[in-house]
């Protein structure tokens, strides 16, 4: 085989990019299980001492709150988004593209701007009492809806309207047709959409930036506030815990759906 320098160059660059991506993630993991405040090079040993201060109320409460908000907003996005996706794929075509674009438009603006506009509107209405978990659920669902719309839309592409018509012709009621034919077929899209909505909410920083209060701080916001002013390996343990949680949820979910199907928008 001919010596090909460009393959060598590509491999070198690719390795560099992969290291760039993987090293910061590995470093977080490493920091959580070593003894030094600043992880030493060469490594000095293993220790779980930072976990003691990580698994305390101070961090577990925001984690639980983030999980609750994520479940709530994923559920809202799932119901509202699935209804819209179903109507858009089965309803009249007129105005469909415009409506789809409108419902996906929150993804186009920087989240920090959305957060700012929501908090300014809330205070204009003198309703600052609303700032808290419920408002976070409502705002996070805004970003969840486009994901559900997309994944459910993709799985509805695979549902031939003729199958629904066949069920109707054989005497099933519209509701029965929906629950026995359509719903099972779009279930994997709903699952994937809800999962994406959950992750987007659980990890969200910028949308929550102005919408958290002292008694309702989400995990990413609390981490961020700590990091801005002090440095501690405890945060590595908290970070690892939250990532492991997400991985477990995604792992369980991927037993039910092939998530990669939805990443490219179903271009099989």
């Amino acid at each position: 085989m001919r010596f090909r320098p460009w393959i060598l160059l590509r491999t070198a660059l690719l390795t560099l990019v992969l290291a760039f991506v993987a090293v910061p993630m590995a470093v977080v993991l490493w920091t959580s299980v070593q003894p030094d405040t600043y992880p030493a090079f060469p490594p000095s040993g293993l220790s779980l001492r930072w976990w003691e201060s990580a698994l305390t109320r101070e961090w577990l409460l925001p984690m639980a709150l983030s999980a609750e908000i994520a479940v709530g907003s994923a559920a809202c996005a799932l119901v509202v988004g699935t209804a819209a996706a179903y109507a858009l794929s089965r309803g009249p075509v007129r105005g469909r593209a415009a409506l789809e674009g409108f419902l996906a438009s929150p993804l186009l603006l920087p989240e920090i701007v959305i957060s700012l506009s929501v908090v300014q509107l809330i205070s204009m209405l003198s309703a600052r009492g609303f700032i808290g978990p419920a408002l976070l659920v409502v705002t996070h669902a805004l970003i969840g809806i486009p994901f559900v719309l997309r994944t459910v839309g993709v799985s509805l592409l695979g549902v031939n309207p003729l199958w629904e018509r066949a069920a109707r012709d054989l005497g099933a009621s519209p509701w029965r047709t929906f629950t026995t034919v359509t719903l099972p077929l779009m279930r994997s899209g709903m699952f994937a959409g809800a999962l994406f909505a959950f992750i987007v909410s659980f990890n969200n920083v910028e949308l929550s930036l102005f919408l958290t209060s002292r008694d309702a701080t989400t995990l990413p916001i609390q981490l961020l506030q700590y990091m801005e002013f002090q440095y501690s390996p405890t945060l590595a343990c908290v970070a690892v815990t939250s990532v492991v949680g997400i991985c477990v949820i995604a792992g369980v979910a991927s037993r039910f759906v092939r998530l990669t199907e939805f990443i490219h928008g179903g271009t099989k």
Partner: protein
Amino acid sequence: MTSPTLATRARRRSRLPWLTLPATVWVLAVFAIPTAILLASSVLTYDGATVTGPFTTANYGSLLGDGYFRSVLWDTVWISAVVGLLCSAAGLLVAHFIVRSGSRWRTLVLLVVVSPLVSSVVVRTYGWLVLLQGDGLVNNMLLWTGLTDSPIAFIGSKFAVIAGLVHVLLPFAVFTAMSSVQSVDPVLERASRDLGAGPVRTFLRITLPLIRPGLIAGFMLTFAISLGAYAAAAVLGGGRVQTLATLVRDRMVVSLEWGQAAAVAVVILVVGAFTVSALLLAGRRSRKGV
């Protein structure tokens, strides 16, 4: 025989559009109306956190007249542009490898590139914080190997902010580039190779021009997200690098000048929209020229 079914189908159809109503109301109430009001109120008089008065251009006037704001604006724009370029280049490299190479490492590469998506921006920023601290791993390593005598202050430099942002946005660039490389018919590349062009020349003359719209789209996406990204600038900038996003937060929380915060937010939108439309226009013109 089919007419009753058609009739019921028509009836059902006419009710269907109502199902889009909850989502539409949601997006209107939480997104469209608040942002419209933000745009409108950025030209009203604020007293601290409350809108008090009539139309004024003072919010913008005091911003644009401020040399500090202009330097923050310029920093944000070029940091975002560098991030966009790096993401597009690295994204294309990875995407081309995954889609075209046929190597058995493809799945692994995709997995590594996608894996940070399970963690939040904050977690990834924290990884960079550990690496780039004064007593952090990179400095440790540099001192240990004797490449430097005293620790380098990475935190608080634009380099750190750019590294953090590229790390966060690379997966999006890879996805965008993958779909545009996939859309190129491999037959065109094979034809070029059969006619005697080398792989590099084929890539530069055939593949690259065909995927240029996708590359531009990837750049626009990562550029626009960088403009409003908060976490990387706040943490890795160490309080010394200010971007438009940290400035919004500053005006909101620290100095309580909500009018200025609204104006900065509008500037973020305008810069993003201006760049996107300029690139779209340039893309359309160059395609016509071909």
